[in-house]
């Protein structure tokens, strides 16, 4: 698989592991540019005969792994269209994102999210597609969508339900609070907590361990223990699109866009 350097991310093969590095200021917000390059990654990976046994997703931004969907772009682009076309544009974006997330979720290699700092919303959802999560001690996880009148729209709820107890999912979703890496590990979300700045390094040594095992066996095991919640994922798209059309959401997004703060919906 050839290395790639894009505007929002890059990838390379290193010691048998593909490293996908997110790098879009300010905090890897997922908008059309990132989505486009993630789609390119999916195409490159599915079209290659790579011997890679692992995929590590990490971030080059000091602020964190990923702060979620690019809400500012989402709002601006929707405002450019007449009201009757906004819904179809949103649906198209969400469905494309789901295709990328679904591919990563079922990818035929062991996937590792090496996270630090802000891992919120769509960024949290991206990390949840991975088989393992390694977090540095400053990582924080959050589904803030309810604060904006939405639910996570990139497959987060079905994936979180797959991995954790329902009470924990309700807590995160309904309170919209962020939790630190210690809490995330205690509830079973994060497999290892490491020193600040060390997530990628530890992900690489974990990938080196995975290299010892037969890849076909690992893929079979992963397929066996990690079902893709397809029906729920499709249902989530419907709920998200329905909620997004509400005037209260538009108002919330406008307030978000007009604020100068990085995460204006937080205290």
């Amino acid at each position, binding site marked *: 698989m050839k290395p790639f350097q894009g505007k929002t991310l890059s990838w390379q093969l290193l010691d048998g592991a593909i490293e996908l590095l997110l790098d879009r200021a300010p905090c890897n917000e997922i908008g059309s540019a990132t989505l486009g390059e993630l789609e390119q990654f999916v195409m490159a990976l599915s079209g290659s005969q790579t011997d890679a046994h692992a995929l590590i997703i990490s971030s080059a931004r000091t602020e964190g792994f990923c702060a979620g969907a690019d809400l500012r772009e989402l709002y601006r682009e929707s405002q450019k269209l007449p009201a009757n076309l906004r819904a179809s544009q949103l649906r198209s974006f969400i469905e494309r994102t789901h295709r990328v997330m679904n591919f990563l979720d079922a990818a035929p290699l062991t996937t590792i999210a090496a996270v630090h700092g802000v891992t919120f919303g769509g960024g949290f959802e991206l990390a949840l597609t991975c088989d393992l999560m390694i977090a540095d001690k400053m990582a924080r996880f959050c589904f803030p969508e309810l604060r904006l009148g939405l639910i996570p729209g990139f497959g987060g709820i079905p994936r979180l339900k797959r991995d954790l107890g329902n009470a924990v999912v309700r807590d995160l979703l309904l309170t919209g609070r962020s*939790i630190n890496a210690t809490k995330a590990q205690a509830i079973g979300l994060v497999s290892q907590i490491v020193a600040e700045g060390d997530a990628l390094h530890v992900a690489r040594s974990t990938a080196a361990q995975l290299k010892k095992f037969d890849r076909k066996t690992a893929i079979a095991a992963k397929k066996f223990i990690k079902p893709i919640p397809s029906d729920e994922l499709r249902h989530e798209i419907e709920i998200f699109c329905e909620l997004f059309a509400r005037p209260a959401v538009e108002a919330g997004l406008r307030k978000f866009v007009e604020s100068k703060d990085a995460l204006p919906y937080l205290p």
Partner: protein
Amino acid sequence: MRTLENTTSEVLELAASHFNVPREQLRPDDDFFKKLGINSLQALDLLTHLENHFHIELPDYELQGVSDFRTLAERIQSRL
């Protein structure tokens, strides 16, 4: 058992150390956003440091409307 005074002092120390501000410049009634020159993202970093230091969980919605160190320390104290 920590007193509120101890807790407040530790909060000020941590904030000074993490954001490279001289400790003597920070007072309990200071607005930490303005005094430290931080935004909400950096406030989360401070929250993580505080949670790790005091071994507590402090939901960020409890910090709604909190902008001074003293009130922040009170919120932490109630979790000790």
